[in-house]
């Protein structure tokens, strides 16, 4: 693939652009793109949005043509009116770990209820060995996913122990 032509002066300027400027421009575009994506997906036009926000269409036109500096409040109003998130904040790492554990607990529960305690003898006899292996796999996986004393808060560990103890 051939190299894309670049202007030498702009290449020099690029070397000294602070990271925050690049992020400012990229994030501003990303927010605008996200708003237009939701409007497009939901088939909402400017006048619908104005109605749901209780504003004049001319004001919403300014919002959608960039003549408005969004604040967290105006973005929140927009999110409420559109029924979708415009900006997503990454979850805290301990919350993520807990979410991962919860999902595994759910999968484990489902497995135990649906397969191991299946009352159909036919199914049990056909797949008992396989199910037993899967049980061990699920159980170990669950154990490994949870045991991380560095980032899992004690409260979450207690919740985990409480949740798996009946099993």
């Amino acid at each position, binding site marked *: 693939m051939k190299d*894309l*032509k670049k202007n030498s*002066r*702009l290449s020099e300027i690029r070397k000294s652009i*602070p990271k925050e*400027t690049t992020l400012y421009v990229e994030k501003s*575009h990303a927010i*605008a793109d996200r708003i237009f994506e939701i409007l497009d997906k939901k088939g909402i036009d400017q006048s619908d949005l104005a109605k749901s926000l209780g504003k004049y269409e001319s004001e919403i036109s300014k919002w959608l*043509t960039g003549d408005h500096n969004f604040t967290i409040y105006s973005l929140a109003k927009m999110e409420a009116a559109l029924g979708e998130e415009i900006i997503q904040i990454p979850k805290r790492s301990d919350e993520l770990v807990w979410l991962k554990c919860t999902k595994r607990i759910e999968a484990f529960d489902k497995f135990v209820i649906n397969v191991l305690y299946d009352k159909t003898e036919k199914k049990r006899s056909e797949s008992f060995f396989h199910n037993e292996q899967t049980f061990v796999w699920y159980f170990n996986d669950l154990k490994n996913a949870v045991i991380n004393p560095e980032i899992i808060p004690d409260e979450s560990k207690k919740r985990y122990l409480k949740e798996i103890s009946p099993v």
Partner: protein
Amino acid sequence: MKRKITIELFEEHDRVNYYTICFDGESSETDKFFDLFDNDDFSEDINIVVSDFDTIGNKGAYERDFRREGKSNDRLCALPSNWVSCRLRLFCLRINEQIVILGNGYEKTSQTYNENPTANYYAETLLSVDKLLRIKLSRDIVQLYNRQFYGDLSFIIEDERPKEK
């Protein structure tokens, strides 16, 4: 005074090719813009303009991103995009999602560019090029394919440069 002006490739990006206009024997109009504003007073604004080039270059030149500067029936607009604050305006013609022709620009101090004779001249120059480009495109003297122009990209326009004070 009638003068020859040519459309030349300025920069290529993943999704957009930026062209510029260049009077015979002179540097391009966009280079002149950077000659004037790439200094300590405008470094933050120039950084925003260049970052905006790159962002649009990587995602495509959507109509909504460009500031409308001209009338409803022409293609005159300006960068940086609508979504960022900047004191500078660089005139351009958004041909489609893949091609943008850059001109010269100015520091925005008035409500409309017409109030500033130099800005008005830069805008009129681009509009003259656009008018002749449309004719050449319609007669197949110039073709568009992907992100490229093909054919004769030189034009003779009336150059009514305002007198320097």
